[in-house]
């Protein structure tokens, strides 16, 4: 339930970070799968930087912009947008870098009358503006009230911005620091580091474009 709600950053940075989540309850009727495929194809048409789908056995197919074949490793395998769009799905995630694309996606989804629950993670005022534009009323929000406890243990702000883009906290702060060190030694580019971090996020919602920008800022 928390997932993409952890994303941290300033307003300018978050304006380039949008996640669309589509999920059916477990007992959904089989005929809905056809609608889910339509939904993924709509999402695929509007410049996602990440897109993925899961089947009922938990198999995931994922595309991430900039992920090249040479960066594929044993457990992390990249696919094309077309592969994702053709996969049978129960759950679907897509990441975008601008509001216009998100608006076009949800507008098409609404017009298609798919009836599939859609959650958008992003700045509330911008998401509510999108709702107004497509003439729908937001149903429910998940608000983050903040982080409590021994805050001194938390990593540096730019590392936090990177690792909180993974919905399950599976991107290690130490890996982020290690990759930033490699960039400083000119052994890696910010783009390569962003992809390496994105690979760890197996539900595929780490925005590689935003990550590259955060890494570039931290190393310049």
């Amino acid at each position: 339930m928390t997932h993409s709600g952890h994303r941290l950053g300033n307003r300018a940075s978050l304006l380039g970070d949008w996640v669309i989540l589509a999920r059916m309850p477990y007992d959904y009727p089989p005929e809905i799968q056809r609608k889910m495929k339509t939904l993924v194809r709509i999402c695929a048409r509007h410049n996602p930087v990440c897109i993925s789908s899961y089947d009922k056995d938990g198999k995931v197919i994922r595309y991430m912009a900039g992920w090249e074949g040479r960066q594929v490793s044993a457990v992390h395998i990249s696919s094309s947008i077309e592969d994702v769009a053709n996969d049978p799905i129960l759950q679907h995630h897509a990441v975008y870098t601008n509001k216009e694309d998100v608006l076009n996606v949800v507008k098409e989804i609404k017009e298609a009358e798919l009836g599939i629950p859609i959650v958008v993670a992003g700045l509330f005022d911008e998401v509510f503006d999108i709702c107004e534009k497509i003439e729908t009323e937001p149903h429910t929000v998940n608000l983050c009230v903040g982080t409590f406890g021994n805050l001194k243990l938390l990593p540096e702000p730019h590392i936090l911005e990177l690792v909180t883009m993974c919905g399950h906290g599976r991107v290690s702060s130490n890996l982020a620091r290690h990759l930033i060190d490699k960039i400083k030694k000119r052994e890696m580019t910010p783009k390569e580091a962003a992809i390496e971090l994105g690979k760890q996020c197996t539900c595929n919602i780490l925005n590689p474009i935003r990550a590259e920008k955060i890494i570039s800022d931290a190393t310049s």
Partner: protein
Amino acid sequence: MSWPRTIRPLFSGAGRTLVSINKDLKLPKRSFEDVMEDQKGLGGRGTTDMKTVDLTENLPYGMVDISIEMGRPALGVYFRDVEKVSSSLAQNEIDFDPSNNLTKIIDPSTGRIKKEYKDVLDEKVLSAVIRCRVPFEEVVDVYDVLEKVASKIDTVFTLFLVNRCVDGKIPLIHTLKDHGIEVRENGKTNLGLGRSIFS
């Protein structure tokens, strides 16, 4: 890998855990193979409620679903710290969500880890979500409880509140602001497009 270490995939994995919630977990004597077998399917560490609430209508107006994600961001959490927070909530008569993974190993009357699962207290996982539901007017009381117990833990937790929108607005934000509680400007919004599917 043997018990209690086999508890870790349930709280450190991404997805595939929800099916295990619906089965008899057969804790505490489980092999690693048992745990992996039960993880076929989909899900996360929490529940799917917010993502499908427009279909299921599981969240009535006037109620707030509270998620306390222990160990996030970035740090992870020992179950002994989870117990400190859950027992504080139980002392204030907060009911835990029975559909949540973590609730399976907690004694709802005390908030403490059940006797048969005490071995997990020194196990560390990426995160554990404590979930409960309270009426709108009790949210600030829960916030106060959490603020107090926060100073007793050796990690962090992030607090999330799920509530219904009313006429395109978020009433809870105003209540929180009235009590000096700030809310982050980003988060998740269920657009309500699932409402028509079965109606």
